[in-house]
């Protein structure tokens, strides 16, 4: 795990929590939307908070997919669940809402869960080499210097066979 990868996980946590709360704030400003009045949904998107919330959640999705490209699902989900804790802490210290004892206990449990996986390897699933195209696999092998003879490398690439 590099520093950049930890930053991506932090980004998933922060953008997810911020997107949820900004979107929720925007939808409260917009008010109730009836299922029989769907065009009002378009006006809801015009609300700056709703728009900002959607942009934050789109960033969350991109970062989450990036994290899933190099880490296990069972690593990414608990690691990014601190977003729930962030929401509760922002409710307590920014919005000055009361946070019950049960919610503090929830914060402790989630933090404990994150602590459990913090030191474990991010990726345990086998790489999907079998699903990679033969051409790409040969190119990767050539790039990694696995082939000493450039002519052989070109031949392997063109035939799509991994040496």
């Amino acid at each position, binding site marked *: 795990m590099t520093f950049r990868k930890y930053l991506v996980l932090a980004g998933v946590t922060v953008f997810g929590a911020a997107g949820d709360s900004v979107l929720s704030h925007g939808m409260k400003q917009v008010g109730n939307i009836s299922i029989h009045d769907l065009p009002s949904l378009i006006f809801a998107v015009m609300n700056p908070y709703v728009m900002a919330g959607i942009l934050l959640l789109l960033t969350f999705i991109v970062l989450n997919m*990036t994290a*899933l490209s190099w880490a*296990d699902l*069972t690593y990414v989900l608990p690691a990014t669940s601190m977003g729930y804790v962030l929401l509760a802490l922002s409710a307590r210290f920014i919005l000055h809402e009361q946070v019950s004892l049960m919610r503090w206990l929830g914060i402790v449990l989630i933090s*404990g869960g994150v602590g459990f*996986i913090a030191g474990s390897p991010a990726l345990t*699933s086998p790489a999907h080499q079998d699903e990679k195209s033969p051409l790409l696999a040969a190119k990767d092998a050539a790039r990694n210097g696995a082939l000493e003879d450039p002519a052989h490398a070109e031949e392997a690439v063109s035939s799509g066979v991994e040496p």
Partner: protein
Amino acid sequence: MRHAYIWGGILTIAFFSVVGDVLLARAMKQVGDVHALLRSAGLWTVVGRVASNPNIFMGVAAMTVAFFTLLFALSWGDLSLVAPAAASLTFIGNAFAAKIFLHEKVDRRRWIAAILVAGGVALLAG
């Protein structure tokens, strides 16, 4: 009868959330390490690989079903029951599904993490 509807809705939300998560995780493993790909092949290669992967679209479709089921379930039951129950079941379901379908090594440490987070989410959102 109302309870059956609510819990049926909760189980449906959790099921489709797990299916969506697993399909997205599988798709991104097939795409490859995005950081390495960005360095070696550039942004458009990454975008092309993501856009041409059918698992991405099936994953998004499953998550859309989960979202609309949540909307229906919220009309039958309270938010304080439906949201935490569905989120907790999704965490536990993901651990099983990742072990079976993604062949991840879900050791004792990861099981404990999944159970702690599922319990914590239930308490926070409840």
